[in-house]
């Protein structure tokens, strides 16, 4: 935690109280001048801090920023958020977290930013990340599981994001295989997971999570591959980003702990309950052609199980799945 975060944390633990400069200086082990400097930085960020002679500083109002001290305050997690690093602006939270991971950051480290200047998705696609409206965060995991099972984490983060949207924003988010989060067919979240591993050992996995929370219609770029939406556009209500992030981290924490002890089955069941195409007739585009069948569920590795029209079972490992009308052959 930075000095700024520690001061903020002091204010948070003493709501509506004056804290003297001397007290802050003593508890943070920094000079009075440094305290004054940090208070100035906080004010520049939009915090309203009253300074009263002989009594000290008091926090009056807080801007809508995602700050490490606020995220850690009251967070009920075993693993997630052990360390939280927040930035007003960053190139990409995945890039920053990767750097920290390579320097040995602990499992559960979270990087969050109010804006990304180079937010990205799959295969270098851009992820629109305007200031202060959405959630852009990355979470570091160091699971001791076989490399082959790491892609199961894709489903874990998809389930946690969809369930948190449903809980906090009272929506009915669905998952599309493997990890698109859709509201009535429009994309609300982008999840980009990156792994660093050798043949037999995972060094780390980064769960990158972007969720359109309070984005307005004019903030979406004109050219998008998929129809997109935000929680605000769907419900008409502004989402408290801090509350949302804490709920999301707590949900990820529960499911990750469960995954480490009980394996993939509970996540698989939850994912199937949220899936938008269970038992539906679909077409799967696979580059060299397409196949048709009925979605049966996930297999133990996360491949989509599809019963082809000729009755044969097929495991889908890649491809775009879209619902189609079944053509009656008889």
């Amino acid at each position, binding site marked *: 935690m930075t000095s700024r975060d520690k001061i903020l944390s002091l204010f948070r633990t003493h709501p509506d109280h004056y804290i003297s400069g001397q007290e802050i200086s003593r508890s943070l082990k920094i000079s009075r001048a440094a305290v004054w400097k940090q208070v100035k930085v906080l004010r520049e960020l939009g915090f309203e801090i009253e300074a009263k002679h002989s009594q000290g500083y008091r926090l009056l109002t807080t801007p809508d920023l995602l700050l490490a001290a606020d995220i850690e305050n009251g967070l009920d997690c075993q693993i997630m958020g052990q360390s939280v690093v927040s930035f007003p602006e960053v190139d990409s939270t995945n890039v920053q977290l990767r750097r920290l991971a390579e320097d040995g950051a602990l499992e559960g480290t979270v990087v969050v930013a109010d804006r990304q200047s180079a937010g990205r998705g799959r295969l270098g696609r851009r992820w629109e990340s305007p200031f202060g409206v959405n959630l852009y965060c990355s979470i570091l995991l160091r699971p001791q599981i076989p*490399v082959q099972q*790491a*892609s199961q984490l894709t489903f874990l983060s998809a389930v946690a994001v969809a369930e948190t949207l449903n809980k906090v924003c009272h929506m009915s988010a669905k998952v599309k295989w493997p990890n698109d989060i859709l509201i009535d067919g429009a994309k609300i979240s982008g999840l980009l*997971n990156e*792994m660093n*591993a050798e*043949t037999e050992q995972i060094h780390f996995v980064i769960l990158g999570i972007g969720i359109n929370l309070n984005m307005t219609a004019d903030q979406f770029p004109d050219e998008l591959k998929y129809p997109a939406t935000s929680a605000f556009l769907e419900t008409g209500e502004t989402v408290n980003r801090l509350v949302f992030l804490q709920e999301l981290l707590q949900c990820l924490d529960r499911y990750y702990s469960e995954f480490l002890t009980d394996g993939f089955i509970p996540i698989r069941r939850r994912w199937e309950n949220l899936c938008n195409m269970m038992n539906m007739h679909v077409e799967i585009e696979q*580059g060299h052609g397409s196949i048709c069948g009925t979605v049966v569920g996930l297999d133990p590795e996360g491949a989509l199980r599809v019963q082809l029209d000729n009755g044969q079972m097929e495991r889908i490992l890649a491809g775009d799945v879209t619902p189609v009308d079944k053509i009656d052959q008889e």
Partner: protein
Amino acid sequence: MKLRDLKSLIKLVTDTDITEFNMENQEEKIHIKRGSNQEVIHVSSPVAPVAAATPGAPAQVAPAPATAVAEPVVDDNYDSVSSPMVGTIYRKPSPDADPFVKVGDIVEAGQTLCLVEAMKLFNEIEAEFKCKIIEIVKGDATPVEFGETLFIVEKL
């Protein structure tokens, strides 16, 4: 050795001026000899695989242990880089970008060679040591198997 690996081995040998090639490990012995008009390829297994002796067993070769697949040493001078998981290989960071590496490139340890994606989890495959790219075995955006050779490299 898988048929595919054997094919790449033959190709590697025939692409050079080598006329005779021998390789032996615990499982098999390979002898390739090239004359002016003839090519002799002989593969033998000193110990018959157990699966092959079972009546009615599928005729295909039983999968070799993971360690053996992961390290198909082609030549004393060459090493192979294999996929740690089933997925799709991407040789470029984005469809319009240049490939991470080309044949003949010299790469440093830790440099990215390609990405392997499995269900939206991207794994950057890095060079474990300084090496020269001898052969790129898999094409961009094609499926790869666990342990399948992606690159043949020469350790520098």
